């Protein structure tokens, strides 16, 4: 695995989605890029407890997967919906992560569309199953630190 800088993001899709994520996760203020770690060739990255996946093209080949632990999801559930995830109701962690990814992608869709990168039909995020065996794909791991812990974004994009 090798690190790349936040200024060296090779994919426009990835850049727009990360910008949307940072805007949402940091309450509308884009955080300092230096805090975000980007790792190339992240094929062997292990997902955190909960993950959710969204296709970034009509063929369902390019993907973004967001992955986080429940206490981080609960923090953002409180921030976005005014409700922490109660103990013993862990199924809501997956729901919360799906909603988070849905909102990030929804916000990114406007900017993607402006740049002619329309890809969205109505797709509900799926529980992530990161397939790291796909040839001819670049896998980028982006670790976003937040007040409550880290959130991982994995971009699996065609060469």
């Amino acid at each position, binding site marked *: 695995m090798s690190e790349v800088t936040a200024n060296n993001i090779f994919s426009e899709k990835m850049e727009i989605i990360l910008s949307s994520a940072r805007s949402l996760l940091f309450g509308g203020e884009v955080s300092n890029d230096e805090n975000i770690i980007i790792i190339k060739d992240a094929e062997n990255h292990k997902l955190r407890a909960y993950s959710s996946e969204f296709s970034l093209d009509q063929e369902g080949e390019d993907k973004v997967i967001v992955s986080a632990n429940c206490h981080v999801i609960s923090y953002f*559930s409180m921030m976005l*919906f005014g409700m922490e995830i109660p103990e013993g109701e862990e199924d809501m962690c997956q729901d919360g992560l799906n909603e988070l990814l849905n909102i990030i992608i929804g916000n990114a*869709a406007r900017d993607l569309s402006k740049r002619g990168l329309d890809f969205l039909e109505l797709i509900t995020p799926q529980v992530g199953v990161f397939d790291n065996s796909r040839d001819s794909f670049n896998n980028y791991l982006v670790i976003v630190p937040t007040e409550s812990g880290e959130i991982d974004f994995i971009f699996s994009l065609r060469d």
Partner: protein
Amino acid sequence: MARIMVVDDSHMIRKALRLYLEGGNHEIVAEASDGEDAVKAYAKFKPDLVTMDIAMPEMTGIEALGLIMEMDSEAKVVMVSSINEKDLVVKAIELGAKSFVLKPMSREKTLQVIDEVLAK
């Protein structure tokens, strides 16, 4: 106080909406996690208002809205949508939905929209 049904495939969103609405002195008479159950529950409970998610597995919120409007042309349905579902919100309004709220929805905005629709 109104009798409200909440329809969303996300347990978390149903719980958040329940908190908002009960905090606004409304009663949740039913919850449904997909469109088919929503149509059945509407027939059974005849709520004063329905909050309806758009993207759900099996039967979508748009399809369920259409069936509810066929059953009761006076039904008050408020769509709950993501920002990328703009075209579907327009379709829902054409089918008879009274308004919509965007996710992430705040308690204040949700209650404002629902109270406006109930007052019509």
